[in-house]
């Protein structure tokens, strides 16, 4: 399939939007990902860097595994699976729309944490998607806003994606001294999901939450002294793609994250550094 010349992924998506393209954009790189378009609108983004709508539905417990498998068996066309899920009352139409739309924006954010190596266009691939889809321009603008906000609040978003937060015993951590909780339930659950080994991505996958939402909450919790982490110690210039950890697993029996590839030396010395700008996605 012909790949139109474009200076970056947002420009490519804008060009495909104007063409009314239906198909798939495969973006290589780390983490890279797959962008599904229908009639020029972005219906889904799948990337190892953030949970998809399917991951979110299952990990959060909105739909249990058995019901999901039964739904997939009853409606094998993934492009129509959303209609089946709603028709069988497994989830409300508006709730599913929220989940799928949030996953598109979160996937774009995750892919923007590192610059893409390249892209190619392929045929349409069925997938669970939001209808009718998201226009490329607001998606790019929101991704840029998210990157800028994290940079302003904390620093480079790509570095924040690699931190491994742990809870801080103290008044903000009710488990530590039994005082009344002053954190919201969402924040308490997030603190409890940190253990010094999980990255924000691991936590997002385990809880069925968005990567950006987890990172934003971690910044707030760090400011409140509820969590802490070693800052800016990883020479590698990309976000973690360590295997995700099931939510039911306890900290005690949790396996250590798999180590990433060794950094590559370049002629002239030094480590490669990633471009953390919001150019992709």
């Amino acid at each position, binding site marked *: 399939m012909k790949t139109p010349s474009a200076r970056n992924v947002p420009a490519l998506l804008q060009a495909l939007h104007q063409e009314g393209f239906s198909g798939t954009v495969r973006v290589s790189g780390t983490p890279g990902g797959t962008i599904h378009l229908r009639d020029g609108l972005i219906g889904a983004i799948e990337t190892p860097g953030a949970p998809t709508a399917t991951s979110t539905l299952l990990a959060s417990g909105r739909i249990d595994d058995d019901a999901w498998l039964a739904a997939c068996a009853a409606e094998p066309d993934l492009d129509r699976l959303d209609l089946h899920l709603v028709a069988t009352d497994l989830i409300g139409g508006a709730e599913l729309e929220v989940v799928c739309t*949030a996953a598109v924006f979160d996937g774009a954010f995750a892919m923007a944490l590192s610059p893409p190596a390249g892209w190619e266009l392929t045929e349409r691939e069925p997938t669970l998607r939001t209808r009718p889809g998201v226009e490329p321009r607001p998606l790019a603008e929101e991704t840029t806003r998210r990157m800028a906000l994290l940079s302003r609040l904390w620093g480079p978003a790509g570095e924040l994606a690699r931190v491994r937060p742990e809870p801080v015993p103290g008044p903000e951590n009710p488990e530590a001294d039994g005082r009344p909780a002053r954190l919201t339930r969402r924040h308490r659950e997030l603190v409890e999901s940190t253990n010094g080994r999980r990255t924000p991505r691991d936590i997002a996958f385990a809880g069925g*939450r968005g990567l950006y939402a987890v990172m934003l909450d971690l910044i707030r919790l760090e400011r409140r002294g509820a969590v802490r982490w070693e800052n800016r110690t990883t020479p590698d210039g990309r976000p973690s793609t360590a295997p995700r950890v099931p939510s039911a697993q306890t900290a005690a029996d949790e396996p250590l994250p798999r180590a990433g590839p060794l950094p590559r030396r370049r002629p002239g010395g030094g480590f490669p550094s990633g471009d953390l700008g919001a150019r992709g996605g």
Partner: protein
Amino acid sequence: MGERATALQTSLDRLLESPGVTGVALIDAVTGLTYGVAGDAAQAGTGTEASELAALICERLGAAGAVGELESVVMTSTRRHQVLLSVDRSAGDPLLLAAGLDRDRANITLALRGLGDRAREVLA
């Protein structure tokens, strides 16, 4: 985000039937992403500002020792009410329903109750 009426859009459109409601928006309380708007978007307010305001209020209430979750925020000017309502959800990050109300046409007590009841139906 498209021209076809979705389930979410239909739910939000129904909220405009409440007396005095001029605009509503469903917003992600954490990310500030706006999922849908009905009526006058400017009257509903922007998602990022609404979510940041709600987060700030939650943080300050927590720092002051308050226990529990934020349910609503009401801001009143000489001509308008601006309301943020937390939307119940079985799973996932909290959502906010932002609504702009005309003071001359809305009874804030009744409007809060009506919007609260209907907000629960948005994601049903």
